[in-house]
């Protein structure tokens, strides 16, 4: 099937099998390997990307479902300089192995888009969609709260 989709602001037209998963389309057809594969069941959130600004699990989404949609992956976050979320994750060590990190960053961006000033509990509840096996989450929560502050400061400036 022919699909037309916009990924990180670039429009692509490609032929895909109807069964091709979005995560495989991103990784294999577009070489956007920052989106990782974790549980393959839609549980762990590792493969999280944004579709029209909302998180989806690309391991249980078909590429054809992205037809006519806008997809955002981790590769688009840094625009020259790191995104405040990436800066905060680095500063607070909100990662260890880095494998869940792209999904975490995109989920965090959604949490902060919905609520620029969340409480610690709200961040934890929000991140419960995504598994991290390394950090025990504490530093990820710290990083998201730190990023929220950075982004609020930027928005005021």
């Amino acid at each position, binding site marked *: 099937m022919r699909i037309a989709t916009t990924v990180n602001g670039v429009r692509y037209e490609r032929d895909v*099998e109807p*069964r*091709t998963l979005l995560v*495989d389309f991103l*990784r294999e057809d577009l070489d*956007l*390997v*920052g*989106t*990782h*594969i*974790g*549980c*393959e*069941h839609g*549980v*762990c959130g*590792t493969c999280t990307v944004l579709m029209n600004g909302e998180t989806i699990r690309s391991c249980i989404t078909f590429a054809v479902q992205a037809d006519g949609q806008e997809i955002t*992956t*981790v*590769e688009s*976050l*840094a625009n020259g300089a*790191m995104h405040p979320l*990436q800066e905060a*994750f*680095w*500063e607070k*060590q909100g*990662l*260890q*192995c*880095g*494998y*869940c*990190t*792209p999904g975490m*960053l995109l989920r965090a961006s959604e949490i902060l888009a919905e609520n620029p000033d969340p409480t610690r509990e709200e*961040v*934890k*509840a929000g*991140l*419960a*969609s*995504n*598994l*991290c*096996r*390394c*950090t*025990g*989450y*504490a*530093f*990820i*929560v710290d990083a998201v709260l730190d990023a929220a502050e950075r982004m609020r400061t930027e928005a005021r400036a």
Partner: protein
Amino acid sequence: MTTTEHPPTRVHKERTWVGQSIRRLEDPKFLLGKGGYIDDMRVRGMLHAALVRSPHAHARITSIDTSAAKALPGVFAVVTGAEAAEITNPMPDFGPAADKHVWRCLAVDKVRYVGEGVVAVLAESRYVAEDAADLVRVEYDLLEAVVDPEKAARDGAPLVHDALGSNVAYERTFQFGDVDGDFAAADVVVKDRLRWRRSGGQPLETVGAIASFDRGTGMMTINTNTLSFTSYLFMLAGTLQIPDNKLDVIPHPAGGSFGSKLFATKVSAIAGMLSKVSGRPVKYVEDRIDNLANCDHHGSDRVYDVELALTRAGIMTSLRIKTVDDYGAYIQFGVGHHGNALAQVTGPYRIKSVEYGVTAVLTNKCQQGAYRGFGSEVNNWMLERMVDMAAKELDLDPVEIRRRNFIGKDEFPYFIPTGNVYDSGDYEAVLDKALELADLDHWRAEQAKARAEGRYIGIGLVTCQERSVFSATEFWFWFDEPAAPVTSMPESVTLRVGALGDITATLYSCAFWGNSPETMVAQLVAEEFGCEPHAVSVVYAGTRNGLPATGPGGSRTTVMLAGAVEGAAERIKDKAIKVAEHLLEASPDDLEWADGGVQVKGSPEQRKSLGDIAIQTHLFKHSLPEEIESGLEASKVYDHPYTTMPSADRKNLGVFYPFVGHACHIPIVEVDAQTGEVRFLKYIAVHDCGTLVNPRSLAGHITGGTVQGIGTALHEEYVYGAEDGNLLTQSYMDYLIPTAMEAPEFVIGHCETPSPWTPHGIKGGGEGGRMMAPAAIAAAIDDALAPLGVRATELPATPARIVGWIEAAGGA
């Protein structure tokens, strides 16, 4: 043993970079989505593999029909286990009797657990490979499954390996000290039966490899996210029937391991075998079911019968431990897991004697391997469960009984009954700090208030060891006549100072797996040379031409790399001083290394920086004395710094895990007596891993390891059907990993009791919170449900189990 046999006691210097929580060098590439994981790599001409897995726990393979699979367009090869066995040797197995429980990359004749690979399919894409796998027809003759480890050990049980003639792969009882005498003299003996069920590392990235066999040169190159291959390359080479000088294993960052990617050979063996068959590069990345059901590394699975002897005053004198460990269908590391346990079997306590009986049983389950703690975390849980039982029996406070039995801070180095030594420690200080952070008066008041309302708040407290830096003996002291009594597990570093003074550190067999090898090495290099850590470049070498290296595991990386960095730096500084002698026209006695350069003692204005010296050695060799060679590079092979051999009668196992950290964990939980849910109100963890290199990095291991420990204690289990041996937890819908909502709010504290024998006094700490959390949580559940008379003797303490305990005790 006398103290003169210890390594020399070091004088630790003031530190600049070691001890700083700097930002990690590793992080930017991961944050940008450019981690370079194995599945991100593509090689021209690469094919993709998928496996046909066994749906049965125990069955004879009667026929395999691959014709339909082979006929599918895009399929390059379909290889059965029998065909694979013609071109590969068995997988590495530390024995005993490796020939009697032969482990192969794909099953031959018989399948021994659900998920075991039976046929490998190679195709132009993973999609086509999986389509073809579905077309393979395998007929089985079903056999009775061996599931329960204690029943498996009995005579007449169906045999997992016919050649062994029994399901008991290893059985022996060791005595250290006068156990019978100490028990006879005891006032009190507490006994219990405890059950630790299997969980595993479950990294979010599975194991993967790309193998490229070059038929022209005979060279096999394997890119993979497993590690620890440099010194033990010959084993994988043997499996693949490749000379080890024609095998190069190139490490990629691992998306988590927790032990489960330590020396994971099956995936590389399958990819390598298929590359030999096809002459094409082959990618094989486990899918999640492969990793849950057919990985190399499930964790420990033990039944314990334990007795602890005490005096009326609560002084622990002796331990009798009998454990049956369910190893699954194969054994790869022997019973090394119990070596880990014996390294710290008596915990932080002055227990005089120990009996340790271990029965390693084979069943129809995936095999055991490594999981964060390597079996010593299980021992911690068992011991702390018994200490709490004794405290209750003697009506002693859990804090008080521990204080009465602690090895005192002035008693180190301290030999425990097994012969291992604890280098240093201050257990009282760790306990005091944890109590200070915990504010138990507040929580006891909250507990009383809650109980009045019919709610159950509990406070757990444990004091546990974290042994670090294993030596090789623990893999063979089990046997009177070991086949391979290896003596050292080395680690190496090469440091190269470029012409402009920039430093590159090359690591061998020490891939990134979520730890911080680059950051840590950079901090150590910066400490030596006074440079900025982020200016250090770190290279992960492949195995080809690699220096001796064992890789991470058993919390060894930091200490071993610190020794290697120190040794290589010393060699560079020696050469730098020789060059400076010439440049400054000074005698060596008048020169000193200071502030990242060489200067004349007392005249810091007469100095040459490392950059000044480096450019001379690289570009102006002929201006230097004859004996100084070009370049400024040095390597150090750092051998295990303190290993002694076991005694012939094995009443003393020698020193094999000498750098021993300590921690106190205090979780505060609320248990819902109706649903069995355990919720964390607070979690206090104080660790002492000697001198810290990067406190925040260690804190990450404490929090991360603790949440893994929460998984082990409450949620995670590979559940096998009691009758048919089917694996019931084949996805993350059923194998439950803690989310942010299950993770507690932490209060982390550090104490630093330096090791007298390691660079800067560092001890390993990478296994972190998983060493203590299961024990601490069990104690907290007991405390919460004390009014109901519940004792948590089994884990994971799932809601169903907790409700069952409450009902068995008469209900809430």
